[in-house]
C-alpha cells in the first residue's frame, strides 16, 4: 500500500503538471489554484507517508539483473522529503506573485511542478540506481527553468548548468558501477554495502572512485572547483534560484553524497583514508572560497549564490567527517540552511521584483521602504552568520562539535574554516543590511519614493520562514533529537 502511495506522491506532481501545458488556461487564476492544489496535495501525501514512518522497499521496475527502480522511506528520506514538502507550497505561493508579469508562465509552472516530483523521487529512492536516475532527470527538468527568460545570458547559463550536471553525473556513474560490482547489493543500507571480500586488495582504486563520485555528485552541490554554474544560473527567476538553486537541486547533490558515503560505501571503509582527507580538503576550500567570492560580488542574487556554495560545503564537510555526529551536523545544516537561504533569496527576489534593482549599492535606504522584507532579510542574515538564537547557530554548533570530536587536525582546520566563513558571511550579509537601514546622511529618500513593500503573497511565505528560523534557533531539541537518531541509523 505505502509503496503505491510513494509512487503516487512522486508521480502526482510529474503527471499532474501535464495539464498545465496541455490546456490553454484562459483564466490564470484557475491555473494557479490548480498548481497550488496539486502541490499541496502532493505535500499532504508526502506528509502522510512520512508520518507513517519507515516503509519497506517497493520495487517498481527491474532493469536488468539486480538493478531495480525501488522506493523506500528511511530516516534520510524523511528529512529530505519533509523539507521539500514543507518548502514547496510556500515557494509556489511566492512564485505566483513573482511570475505575475513574466512571460511563459505556463511552461514555468509545468517544469516547476515536475521538479517537485523528481526531487521527491530522489528523496525516496531506495537504491543507488533509482537515485541516479532521478538525479539525471532533475537536471533535465530544471534546465528549462534556468532558460526561462530566454535571454542570451540565460541560454549560456543553462548550457553550462547542463554540461556541469551531466558531467558530474558521468563521474558519479562510475561510483554507481563500482557499487554494482563490488557491493553486496545496490540498496541503501546504513553502514554501506561494500563487500569487502570482493574488494580484496583493491582498496585504493575504490577510494579513488569514491573521490570521483563525491566530486561528481558534488557538482550539483557546487563543490569547488565545479561551482561556477551556480552563480551563473542565477539568471533564472527568483523562485527557481531560491528553491532549486539554494534548496532542491543543490541539496540533492548533498543528499546524494550522504547516501553514497553513509549508505553505499560506508564510513567504516572510508574513515581515516586519504580519500576522506581529499574530500574534506575540498569542502574546506569551498567553504572559504564561496564566502570570499560572495564578499567580492555586488550582484545580490549572485552574492547569495556564492553564499550557497559555501554553505553547501558546510553540509559536505559534515558528511566528510564520516561519523554519525558529522552526518547529523550535515543534516541539520541542510535543513536549516534551506529555510534560511530560501528566505534571503525571496527577500532579494522581492526587491528585484518590486524595483528591478539588482546590485548591492542600489538598495540604500530600502529598510524603511520595505520594512517587512528587510526585517525578514535581517533575520536570515543573522541566522546565516550563526548568531545564537537563530537556526544557523545550531547547525554550526553540531558541525563544529562533530569535527572537534574526531580530533583530527584537518577537521579542526575545517572548524577554523567554518569560523572564517562565518566572518565573511557577516561581511557580505550585513553590508546589505547596513546599507538598507543606514543610508548615508545625504541620502535622498525621494529617490525611492515609489518603492513599495512586497505584496501579501510574497511576504507571507517570508514570515513563515522567519518564524521557522527563530523556532529552530531557540527550540531545536525535538528536531535535532530526531536528526541525531536518523544520523545514527536508528530511524
Amino acid at each position, binding site marked *: 500500500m505505502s509503496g503505491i502511495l510513494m509512487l503516487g506522491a512522486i508521480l502526482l506532481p510529474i503527471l499532474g503538471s501535464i495539464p498545465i501545458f496541455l490546456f490553454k488556461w484562459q483564466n490564470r487564476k484557475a491555473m494557479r489554484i490548480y498548481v497550488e492544489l496539486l502541490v499541496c496535495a502532493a505535500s499532504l501525501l508526502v506528509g502522510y507517508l512520512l508520518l507513517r514512518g519507515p516503509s519497506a522497499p517497493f520495487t517498481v521496475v527491474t532493469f536488468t539483473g539486480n538493478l531495480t527502480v525501488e522506493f523506500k522511506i528511511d530516516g534520510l528520506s524523511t528529512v529530505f522529503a519533509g523539507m521539500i514538502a514543507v518548502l514547496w507550497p510556500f515557494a509556489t505561493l511566492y512564485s505566483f506573485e513573482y511570475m505575475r508579469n513574466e512571460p511563459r508562465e505556463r511552461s514555468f509552472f509545468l517544469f516547476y511542478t515536475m521538479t517537485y516530483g523528481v526531487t521527491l523521487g530522489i528523496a525516496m529512492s531506495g537504491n543507488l540506481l533509482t537515485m541516479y536516475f532521478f538525479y*539525471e532527470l532533475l537536471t533535465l527538468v530544471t534546465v528549462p527553468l534556468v*532558460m526561462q527568460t*530566454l535571454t542570451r545570458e540565460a*541560454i549560456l547559463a543553462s*548550457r553550462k548548468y547542463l554540461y556541469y550536471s*551531466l*558531467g558530474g553525473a558521468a563521474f558519479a*556513474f562510475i561510483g554507481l558501477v563500482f557499487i554494482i560490482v563490488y557491493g553486496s547489493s545496490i540498496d541503501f543500507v546504513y553502514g554501506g554495502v561494500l563487500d569487502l571480500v570482493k574488494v580484496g586488495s583493491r582498496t585504493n582504486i575504490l577510494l*579513488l572512485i569514491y573521490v570521483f563520485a563525491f566530486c561528481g555528485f558534488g557538482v550539483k552541490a557546487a563543490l569547488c572547483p565545479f561551482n561556477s554554474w551556480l552563480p551563473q544560473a542565477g539568471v533564472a527567476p527568483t523562485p527557481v534560484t531560491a528553491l532549486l538553486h539554494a534548496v532542491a537541486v543543490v541539496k540533492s547533490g548533498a543528499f546524494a553524497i550522504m547516501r553514497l558515503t553513509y549508505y553505499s560505501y560506508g564510513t567504516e571503509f572510508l574513515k581515516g583514508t586519504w580519500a576522506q582527507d581529499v574530500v574534506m580538503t575540498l569542502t574546506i576550500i569551498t567553504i572559504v572560497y564561496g564566502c570570499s567570492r560572495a564578499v567580492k560580488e555586488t550582484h545580490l542574487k549572485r552574492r547569495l549564490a556564492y553564499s550557497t556554495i559555501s554553505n553547501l560545503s558546510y553540509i559536505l564537510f559534515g558528511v566528510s567527517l564520516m561519523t554519525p555526529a558529522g552526518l547529523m551536523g550535515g543534516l541539520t545544516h541542510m535543513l536549516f540552511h534551506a529555510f534560511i537561504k530560501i528566505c534571503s533569496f525571496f527577500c532579494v527576489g522581492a526587491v528585484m521584483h518590486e524595483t528591478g534593482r539588482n546590485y548591492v549599492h542600489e538598495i540604500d535606504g530600502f529598510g524603511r521602504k520595505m520594512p517587512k522584507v528587510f526585517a525578514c532579510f535581517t533575520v536570515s542574515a543573522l541566522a546565516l552568520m550563526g548568531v545564537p538564537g537563530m537556526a544557523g547557530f545550531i547547525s554550526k554548533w553540531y558541525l563544529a562539535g562533530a569535527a572537534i570530536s574526531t580530533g583530527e587536525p584537518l577537521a579542526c582546520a575545517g572548524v577554523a574554516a567554518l569560523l572564517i566563513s562565518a566572518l565573511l558571511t557577516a561581511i557580505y550579509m550585513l553590508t546589505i543590511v547596513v546599507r538598507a537601514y543606514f543610508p548615508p546622511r545625504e541620502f535622498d529618500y525621494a529617490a525611492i519614493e515609489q518603492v513599495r513593500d512586497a505584496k501579501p503573497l510574497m511576504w507571507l511565505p517570508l514570515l513563515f520562514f522567519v518564524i521557522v528560523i527563530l523556532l529552530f534557533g531557540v527550540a531545536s531539541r525535538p528536531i535535532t533529537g530526531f536528526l541525531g537518531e536518523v544520523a545514527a541509523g536508528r530511524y
Partner: protein
Amino acid sequence: MEIIRNFPAAAILLCLFAGIVSSGLKPKAAKWLNHALIVVEMALNLCTLYYTAVTGEAFVYVMGKFPAPWGNEIRAGVLEALLALFVCGVMLLSLLGGEKELEEKVEENKLFLYYVLADHLLCSLLALIYTNDLFTAYVFVEINTISACGLIMIRQTGRTIEAAVRYMIMSLLGSGLLLMGLCMLYDLTGHLLMSNIQESVARLHASGMYGVPLTVTIGLMTVGLAIKSALFPFHTWVPDAYGYSTASSAAILSSLVSKGYIFLLIKIIYRVIGFEVFHDTKIVNVLFLFGLAGMIFGSLSAIKENNIRRMIAFSSVAQIGYIYMGIGMGTQAGMVAAIFHIFSHAAAKALLFVACMGITGASGGSVKFQDLTGAAYRNKLAGAAFTAGSLSMVGLPLFSGFISKLLFAQAAVQNQGKMLPALVVLAVSTILNAVYFMKTVIRIYTPEQSPYEGITWKNQKLLTVSCVLLTVLNLHLGCLSQSWENLIMKGLGMFA
C-alpha cells in the same frame, strides 16, 4: 519446424532476387517491393530467432550440398538472427523516415535504383551476418561497399560524389587488407570455412608455429575491418559520407553498414581466430587504445562542427570508439557491452538522423546551426525525437545509451588493467557528448522568430511513424534490456 533451417539462406536469396526484379520496376513499385521484402525478411528472421532460441543451439545450412570442409555454409545462431531482425527493422524505419526526402530530392528516373541498392545492401548485410565462409564474407563486403557507395551518391551533387569516392577509397583499402589477410589465413590453415579455420588456428597456436604470420594475418583483417567501420583514426570519410547523403542513407550507413563490419570482426574473433588466440596477440590492446582515442576525438570534432549532420556523423565516430573499447576490453563482459552498444547505437543514430531531417526540413533545409534556432517548435515531433535520441546518446537512464554505458563500465570494472583509462574516458566522453548534443537541443528549443514554416505531423506521417517507433525502440532497449542481454549472452555462447 525444420523448414526454418532454410530461412536464412532464403532471406539472402530473396533480397538478391528482389533487387534484380526491382531494377525493372517503376519507382513506386520498387518501393513497395522493397518494403514488403523487408517485412518478409523480418518474419523470416523472427522465425529463425525463435527456432534457435527454442532449440538452444546454432544450426548450419549447407549451400549446394557440398559438405564441409569444401562446401559453402550458412550458420545461424541466436545472435545472428537477432541482429538480422534488428537490421531489417531499423532499415525499414530509416527508409520510411527518409522517404519524403528521397522523393523530393532524388531524380525521378533514379529513384528505383535507390531501392535496388537498398535491397542489395540488405542482402549483403544478411549474408555478412549469416555466412560461415570467410571468402563469401569478403565478396559480400564488396557488394556492401558498392551498394553503400550508391546510396551515398544517389543525390548527385558534387559533395555526395566526392564523399562516395572518398568512401570507396577507404573501403577498398580496408577490403584489400581484409582480402590479403584471409588469403594468408587460407595459406596457413588451408580452409575457408570458419569452423575449420578455427580448429587449425587452435592447433597452430598450441604448437607455437607460425606465430608471426598468424599475428600479421589477424592484424591485417582487424585493421581492414576497422577501416571499413570507421574506427578512429580511419574515420576521415565518415563526416562527408554521412553528412551530405540523404537522411535514410546516412541512417542506414551509420547504424547498419558499419555495424555489419563490426559484427563480422566479432565473428572472426570468436569463430575464426578463437577468442583466446585473439586475446593473446595483444591486438585487443591496440583496439582498446584506438577505441578510447575515438571516443574523445570523435566528440571533440563533433563539438567543433557547425553542421548538424556532420556533427551526428562525428558522434558516430565516437560511438564506434565505444564499441571497439568494449571489444578491446578482451573480456566476455566487454564483448557483451560492445554488442549491446551495436544495437543501442543503431537505434539511437537512426533516430537522430531521421529526426534531424525533420528539424532541418523545418528550417528551410539548412543544416547550419544558426538556422536551426527554435526548430523544435516548428516541428514538434522531430524536436522531441531528436531530444530523445540525444538523451540516449548522452546516456540518460531510461534510454538505451544508459544501459550500454552501464555495461561498458561494469565490464571495465572487472578488468583490472584497463579499468581506470576506460572509466575516465567513458566519463569524459559522456561530458563531451552532453556538450554537443545538449547544445543542439537547447538551440532547437530556443524560440525565435523564423522565416520558415512549421510542419505538423499530418504533413509527415511516415516520419512520425518512424520517429515514434525508433523512440520506442530506444526506450525498450533502455528499460527492458534484460532480455536483450540474455539473447546476446546466449548467442555468444553459440559462437564457441
